């Protein structure tokens, strides 16, 4: 077990803007840290530098208080699951899982014991003789995880391991993976661009954009207290509403946006003149799309709530002041003063 830290790490490919631009962050011992960000923001590149597959342009990687920047991958005692699973196509499932053990020269009997252990944890018992091409996407992913697991590594690096599964399998795989990580307590860095995955699994989330960390914190901190408009609009579906007033952007979550009449006069709230345009019924909840001034905003209500306004007619809405978040209109950075 070990903590993982990157210090001021940079990766520049050719003349392009840096793929990773002075990122510093730490995954504590045993922590499940999620790297979340849109496609192309540098998540994979950062993970590959931690794994030793990509030499950083500058900066350091520290694992368990040892600077490993110049050590090859095999010396770092990490396991990595690639976005593509990278199974060895010429080997059976059994041999794929055995591969890292053979590399370490683990005794044969011990190998079999560990392979059986990993296979039973991941439900691969009946598949040991198959070749990767005879497996479904979900099964391949489990083989990749089993192979990562058998070595009992100090650190897990997972690059979008669930992205190839259908929604149903993904939910259960998410659950299994998280339980599994909790039970073995290995420091895990998990890359995803799926915010539901990030919110549900991470002890902490680092939100990345354009090669920089925009915010790092618990899922709740990231959701409730976004550090800037990028984080505010990247998380939540639908994301935070932003309404420009003067030099500030006034941000609020759709679930906090409700008719002014419902608000208690004792609790201060901010008023908005809302024109609802369209209703979307989603089973457990309904979304009301509309405009404040000429900016699009969304309100979210539980499906069971009776709504006492009608589509197309302006209505006074409000948001409790404690739920308001303010951002500088120019830079998008969070401002902690109430305008």
């Amino acid at each position, binding site marked *: 077990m070990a903590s993982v830290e990157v210090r001021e790490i940079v990766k520049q490919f050719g003349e392009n803007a840096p793929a990773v631009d002075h990122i510093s962050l730490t995954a504590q011992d045993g922590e499940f840290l999620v790297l979340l960000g849109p496609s192309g923001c540098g998540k994979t590149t950062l993970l590959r530098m931690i*794994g*030793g*597959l990509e030499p950083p342009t500058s900066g350091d990687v520290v694992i368990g208080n040892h600077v490993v920047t110049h050590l*090859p*991958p*095999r010396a770092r005692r*990490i*396991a*990595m699951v*690639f976005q*593509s*699973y*990278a*199974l*060895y*196509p*010429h080997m059976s499932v059994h041999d794929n899982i055995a*591969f*890292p053990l053979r*590399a*370490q020269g683990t005794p044969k009997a011990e190998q079999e014991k560990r392979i059986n252990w990993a296979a039973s944890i991941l439900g691969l018992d009946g598949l040991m003789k198959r*070749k*990767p*091409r*005879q*497996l479904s*996407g979900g099964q*391949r*992913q489990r083989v990749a995880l089993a*192979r990562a697991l058998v*070595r009992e590594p100090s650190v897990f690096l997972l690059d979008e391991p669930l992205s*190839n599964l259908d929604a149903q399998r993904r939910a259960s795989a998410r659950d299994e993976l998280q339980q599994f990580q909790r039970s073995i307590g290995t420091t895990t860095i998990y890359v995803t661009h799926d915010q539901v995955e990030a919110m549900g699994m991470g002890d902490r989330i680092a939100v990345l954009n354009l090669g920089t960390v925009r915010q790092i914190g618990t899922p709740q901190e990231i959701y409730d207290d976004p550090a800037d408009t990028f984080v505010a609009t990247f998380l939540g579906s639908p994301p935070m509403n932003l309404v420009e007033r003067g030099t500030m952007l006034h941000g609020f979550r759709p679930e906090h946006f409700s008719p002014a009449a419902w608000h208690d006069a004792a609790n201060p709230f901010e008023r908005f003149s809302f024109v609802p345009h369209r209703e979307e019924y989603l089973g457990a909840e309904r979304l009301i799309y509309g405009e404040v001034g000429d900016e699009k905003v969304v309100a979210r209500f539980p499906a069971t709530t009776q709504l006492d306004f009608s589509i197309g007619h302006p209505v006074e809405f409000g948001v409790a002041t404690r739920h308001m978040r303010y951002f500088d209109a120019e830079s998008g950075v969070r401002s902690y003063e109430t305008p």
Partner: protein
Amino acid sequence: MSAAAAQPYEPDISSTKRGGKAARRGVLYLAAIFFSVFAALPFAWMVFTVFKSNQDLYNGQNVPFRFNEGSPTLDNIRLLWNQTNYPTFLQNTVVVSILVVIITLLVAVPAAYSLTRLVGRWGENLGIAIFLVYLIPPTLLFIPMTRVVAVLGLKNSMFSMVVVYPTFTIPFCTWLMMGFFKSVPWDIEEQAMIDGYSRVGAIWRAVLPVSLPGILTVIVFTVALTLHEFVYALAFVTSSSEKPVSTGVTTELIRGDVFFWQSLMAAAAIVAIPVALLYTLFLDRFVAGFTLGAVKG
């Protein structure tokens, strides 16, 4: 609503004419049969000729694909085997082929690997440049090569061929191998490095096994190129005991304007049949989707 939408629904069956499927199948089989016959006829002709007596062969009225007059005979093979140096030629060819295959693999595989892994357009362009070398005709190159062979003291030795043949097998096979390496996902090499191997170990354990069809192809092509090479062998080797099959039989079985056709064909068939078998044996491996399932999708 458009006019079409107002009509009751009808699937468009005009596109699936009855019998269309059978007709397509028929055409496919016809084409396959045509090309098989096209490819097999010369081969059959060769094999029939081997066993023909002179009177059968030299009568222009006779059909080449059956025995017309006189019974099939082994005399031609006997002549080839006992009255020429054919066994020595065969042995020389085998030795030269094996050595050339080894040299080619040792150079072409690492070269192709590094060229495919060379980032940017450099690798690709270099690969093409190397392939262009293969296209320079040996009829030009043998002149400077003669100097090289002389300097190495290999004149009139079969080892001159071992030195010279890699000049065309290596460029060709490097280019061939690059195609195979390109289809090997980088991921599995990196995965092997994560799993505990050095880069060389990862190549050995993960990349080469997956590229096995490519390596087999390289072997087969190198053998084939070596077998049918003629110009260099003719230019560098004159003594009968050092000749390969290609030049050996033509000098010994074409005496003035007398062609020993049956024995010549026997010489060709004895070499061609193992090569053909080698091809068919490995065909599955060449064609099999060998990287299927390496990456998702």
